């Protein structure tokens, strides 16, 4: 897969320049590292701040979700590489409106170390920080080791729910609690058809034959649970739903939201073909689907493939999910 870029070394900086140039009403660069994006208009004084961050190459994750009812700031690293802890500390400082800051991000070793370190750094600024980790990828570890799972598209729901709680004026503990509740109620699984190319590497991250797919693959190309011939859409969707529902059963009267997500190159046409099965399975189990999301919400640049994310709702989560939000990539209400 070819890429449109100038030099790999400038990829992320130029990408961020273009992003803030296109949407000055939503985003601004904060500080002088060029790797921290904050809301164009800072949140209300006294609002709990929410930061996220991680490697580049996943738009709209992470940076795209900086906006009202969502994140306050983000630190962005090179493609698939953690930002530095100083950049994360800067994002925390940008997000702080005096009520403390929730660090809400995906469970990747480097990001965890750096966000922890960033917390140590902002202790000097007297900013209170909490942490909620997304670990929603059911293919990445057994249920007994849930805390080892990778964080993938489930982040989108967590950003939305925590962001709504913060916007509603809840305090840091309350926002943290509801973010954790969302993180506990979300499950994802992905399947990849092709690799993306990290600009610095210049070649596909992994090789996969023209007639193969991999089930359970991670968004950086982490190995999945099987690799085999490409299957029909309904079989792929069926197995992905099996895996999600085995991990988090959904039954009569349950209310769930579902995200059918393209990892990048896979076009919406194919997502709709898959969504038929997702809907039939959930409604067949007696559940109601609330605010389904179908599109590109968490990607690996031009990787072909999809992920499904299931969020089981209670009244509180549903209210927060439906609350307004606004950024260049997603708007509710």
């Amino acid at each position: 897969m070819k890429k449109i870029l100038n030099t790999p070394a400038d990829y992320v900086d130029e990408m961020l320049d273009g992003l803030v140039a296109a949407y000055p009403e939503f985003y601004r660069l904060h500080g002088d590292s060029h790797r921290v994006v904050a809301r164009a208009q800072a949140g209300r004084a006294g609002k709990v701040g929410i930061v996220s961050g991680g490697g580049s190459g996943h738009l709209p994750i992470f940076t795209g979700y900086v906006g009202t009812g969502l994140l306050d700031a983000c630190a962005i690293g090179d493609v698939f590489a953690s930002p530095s802890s100083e950049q994360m500390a800067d994002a925390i400082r940008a997000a702080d409106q005096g009520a403390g800051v929730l660090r809400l991000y995906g469970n990747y070793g480097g990001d965890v170390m750096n966000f922890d370190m960033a917390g140590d750094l902002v202790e000097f600024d007297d900013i209170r920080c909490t942490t909620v980790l997304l670990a929603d990828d059911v293919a990445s570890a057994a249920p007994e080791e849930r805390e080892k799972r990778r964080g993938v598209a489930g982040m989108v729901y967590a950003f939305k729910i925590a962001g709504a709680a913060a916007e509603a004026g809840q305090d840091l503990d309350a926002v943290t609690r509801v973010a954790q509740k969302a993180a506990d109620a979300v499950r994802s699984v992905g399947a990849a058809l092709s690799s993306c190319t990290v600009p610095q590497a210049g070649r596909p991250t992994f090789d996969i034959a023209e007639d193969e797919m991999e089930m359970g693959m991670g968004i950086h190309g982490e190995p999945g649970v099987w690799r085999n011939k490409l299957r029909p859409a309904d079989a792929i969707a069926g197995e992905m739903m099996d895996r999600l529902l085995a991990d988090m059963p959904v039954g009569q009267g349950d209310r769930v939201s579902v995200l059918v997500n393209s990892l990048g190159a896979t076009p919406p046409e194919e997502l709709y073909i898959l969504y038929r099965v997702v809907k039939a399975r959930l409604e067949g189990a007696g559940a109601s689907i609330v605010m389904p999301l179908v599109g590109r919400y968490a990607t690996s640049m031009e990787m072909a493939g999809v992920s499904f994310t299931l969020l089981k709702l209670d009244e509180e989560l549903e209210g927060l999910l439906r609350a307004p939000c606004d950024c260049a990539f997603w708007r509710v209400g």
Partner: protein
Amino acid sequence: MIDRAALLGAIGRLAAAMEREAPALNEIDGALGDGDLGITMTRGMQAVQQGMAEMPADLGQALLRCAQAFTKTSGSSYGTLFATGLMAVAKAVKGRESFEASEVSGLIAAARDAMQARGKAELGGKTVLDSLDAMAKATAGLSDPAEVACAAREAAREAVEAFRERPATVGRARIFAEKSRTMRDPGMLAMTRIVEAVTGEA
């Protein structure tokens, strides 16, 4: 006795060594991961060197600055762990303008523990922690500077080989656990090069 002058000397040697070793470290890291280990160390040490002129005599403050150079320039695991270790040592010697060779073992152990807390990895998992652990143990009870230096170097070198056949258990390399079984751990090898440079044997 380790003081500001000794620190500045070590910084100079380490920065030069990392620049020299960068390609080799990138390559070994690239076999199982993202191939940035040499870059991480080179960039970090360049930033440390830039702060050398105003390096405080208080070794705690000085080492904190060194740590910050790494937190600024790198988001890679090794950079953050290295900064974490430096911060632990900084904390331990805060307010002092020198320390003795006999304290080195304890300081290495402090770094090891802080880095373990940061990275949440087990000892024995074929990581830089195992190098530090071996070094702390080998230098325990020693007080002659040359002996301490020699013991640390030997321990670091032996640890790399002792863990060679083990599978990687943390970080990106864990994905390639089987492949990693014949390979030296990049972070352990880097620590060997670091000790060699710091102790003036590289």
